[in-house]
């Protein structure tokens, strides 16, 4: 559902932005403030609202999946963009562009067939993740994950001791 929101909100937001921006006069680099003013026009504001929904879903997805798995969900939205551009914005789309969009979709399909998470050889957590829900990335919040590397605490203690020694040597200066 979250990946679906990512795929739908992004192209819808882009379409609203396009409709808003094409209705404005040409903006040059010498007047960047006009870009800020463009944000408050209705179509652009609507596009931004949709993109905020996209971003919230995107962040949630990134917290439990690889970046290279989440991105295909947004890339699949290209097909939706093409359909919206053709039938709503009435932009011309040539056969070559259609071929490009199809190839991109094929590429996205290749990526999507692979695993969603990077396989970490030192940490096979697939079954554990299903049980405790901690997944692959629990470094800061989930304290019990730190117990999986007993040497880590010793290393940290050594580093701390070394840092204290350095401080003690520096203090007389």
């Amino acid at each position, binding site marked *: 559902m979250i990946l679906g929101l990512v795929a739908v909100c992004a192209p819808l937001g882009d379409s609203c932005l396009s409709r808003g921006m094409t209705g404005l006069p040409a903006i040059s680099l010498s007047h960047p403030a006009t870009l800020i003013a463009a944000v408050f026009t209705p179509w652009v504001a609507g596009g931004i609202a949709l993109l905020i929904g996209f971003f919230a879903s995107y962040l949630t997805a990134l917290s439990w999946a690889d970046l290279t798995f989440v991105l295909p969900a947004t890339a699949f939205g290209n097909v939706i963009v093409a359909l919206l551009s053709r039938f709503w914005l009435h932009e011309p789309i040539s056969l070559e562009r259609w071929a490009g969009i199809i*190839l991109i979709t094929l590429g996205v399909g290749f990526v999507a067939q692979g695993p969603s998470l990077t396989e970490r050889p030192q940490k096979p957590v697939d079954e554990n993740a299903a049980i405790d829900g901690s997944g692959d990335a629990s470094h800061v919040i989930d304290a019990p994950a730190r117990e999986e590397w007993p040497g880590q605490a010793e290393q940290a203690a050594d580093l701390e001791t070394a840092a204290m020694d350095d401080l003690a040597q520096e203090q007389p200066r």
Partner: protein
Amino acid sequence: MNFPSQTAHVNPWSAAAMIACVVLCSTTGEVLTAAAMKSLGDLDEIRAQSGLKGAIRAVLTCPLFFAGVSFLALAFFSLLFALNHLNLSLVAPASASLTLVTNAIAGKIFLKENVDRRRWTAAVLVCIGVYFLAH
């Protein structure tokens, strides 16, 4: 209601520069954001433990997240500028697809993600697709 086709009036090099700017800013922002979210852990679990406010606080107190959002904001304004001069059907797929490829490279280098042969094949397919798209 017909909207004019604007891409024909833009120099191809200018169009490439606009798209490259969007892609570079977007890739940097997404890699930083992904690193931030990976450092936080599963947001659903944080929300279950600390509630929605706790999850929002966890995200908003992460410096990497703000660095990523800054680059994504830069990418957004680059996108607005590009949309003012180019067609959506060129800018959106081209920037999104190229961002996919650059993110695969950046993900392998910076995030240590496993980018296998299947993902490289996908990157090549996407590159050919972008060529057709911009042709």
